[in-house]
């Protein structure tokens, strides 16, 4: 019977939502929140002896110190396995889960797994470091996520090697492994070529890497003559959200006029982003989209011009392809508007 430590954030520990995102690391006996059904799935082979939790914002803003504190809490439990998540699409939670699983594995030598959606911003880095169970995008899919986590955990507990990522329900771990196949490569090569020549779908066995190195535009030569625009993914919109941007899975952006505006006020603007604690920004939107500071610099002549509008979308669970498209559309408008530099703020 193996001792297990489970990590969750403040919300899944049952302590509150965004307003508790600043909680410092702490522990509780036994499973909390999703840890309870997870324990049921693990059965007799393992016991979640403790749950360690931390506020998502605290972790994000103090990653090194929070990691040290959490490693100490985990080590004190002498576990044989560490499980973090599921974080679904929550970026800050995902960063914590991925980072902690990696740290526990690398520094404590304890097997560790994390769980999050493929679209989680932390997935790209985490998936190569530790086994990361692929979950759906939201807690509505908690059941299947916990089942897959338990299945992977059980394999690790009996020392069974994990098979190919796709087969195990993990995010692709990267790297390659040899497999014995029925058809020799020469035959497969001709199959592929015949399909390619016929225009029918084919699948390469060695995928191309992403050719996406963006050539870096040179810096602005003179701020005093430059036109700078503000773009945000924090979902700042005029009060009432006239364009109906969604708080999650946004596929559109809004363009909001700044003519004659020196300062964004909380009565005129709000954030509709569903993934962070928006109260501070709603109180003073300049805290996210710093119109007041840029206007001041513009008046003093330190900045050529603040562009006449800002662009806003909600960066919450947005798939990379959508973000790319939104970026391209906004870039097009910025170029037409003669914008020379951009400050893009994210929550």
């Amino acid at each position, binding site marked *: 019977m193996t001792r297990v430590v489970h990590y969750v954030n403040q919300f899944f520990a049952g302590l509150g939502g965004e307003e508790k995102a600043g909680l410092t690391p702490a522990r509780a006996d036994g499973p909390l929140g999703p840890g309870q059904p997870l324990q049921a799935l693990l059965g007799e082979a393992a016991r979640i002896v403790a749950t360690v939790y931390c506020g998502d*914002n605290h972790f*994000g*803003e103090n*990653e090194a110190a929070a990691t040290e504190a959490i490693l100490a809490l985990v080590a004190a439990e002498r576990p044989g396995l560490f499980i973090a998540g599921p974080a679904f699409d929550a*970026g*800050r939670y995902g*960063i914590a889960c991925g*980072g902690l699983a990696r740290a526990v594995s690398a520094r404590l030598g304890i097997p560790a797994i994390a769980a999050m959606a493929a679209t989680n911003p*932390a997935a*790209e*880095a985490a998936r190569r470091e530790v086994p990361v169970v692929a979950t759906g995008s939201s807690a509505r899919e908690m059941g299947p996520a916990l089942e897959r986590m338990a299945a992977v955990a059980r394999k690790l507990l009996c020392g069974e090697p994990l098979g190919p990522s796709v087969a195990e329900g993990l995010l692709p771990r990267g790297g390659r492994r040899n497999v014995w196949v029925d058809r020799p490569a020469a035959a497969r090569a001709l199959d592929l070529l015949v399909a390619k020549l016929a225009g029918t779908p084919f699948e390469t066995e060695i995928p191309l890497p992403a050719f996406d*190195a*963006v*050539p*870096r*535009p*040179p*810096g*602005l030569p003179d*701020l005093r003559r*430059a036109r*700078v625009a503000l*773009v945000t*993914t*924090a979902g700042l919109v005029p009060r009432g959200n006239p364009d109906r941007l969604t708080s999650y899975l946004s596929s559109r952006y809004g363009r909001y006029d700044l003519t004659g505006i020196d300062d964004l006020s909380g009565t005129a603007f709000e954030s509709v982003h569903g993934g*962070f*604690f*928006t109260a*501070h*920004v709603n*109180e*003073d939107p*300049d*805290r*996210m989209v*710093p119109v*007041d*500071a*840029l206007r*001041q*610099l513009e008046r003093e002549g*330190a*900045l050529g011009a603040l562009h006449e509008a800002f662009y806003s979308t909600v*960066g919450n669970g947005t798939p990379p392809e959508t*973000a*790319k498209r*939104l*970026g*391209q559309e*906004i*870039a097009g408008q*910025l*170029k037409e508007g003669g914008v020379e*530099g*951009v*400050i*893009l*703020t*994210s*929550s």
Partner: protein
Amino acid sequence: MAKEIERAGIPTVHVTNLASVARSTGANRIFTGRAIPHVFGDPALPPDEERRLRRRLVEDALAMLTADAGAERA
């Protein structure tokens, strides 16, 4: 999104508190803001101080726009 704007030739500073994510997407200019819910501000400060903080942060971010790429600042 920052990459697409830079691809169009406009230097872009990405202000975020999740620098590791920004890095893993290959963004060129990354600036770590004050905190996740208030990237350019701090409600714990008196309003005047907060405005001065915001101006300093904005000036630093703008400085990244004038520098050549490959920069990261906390």
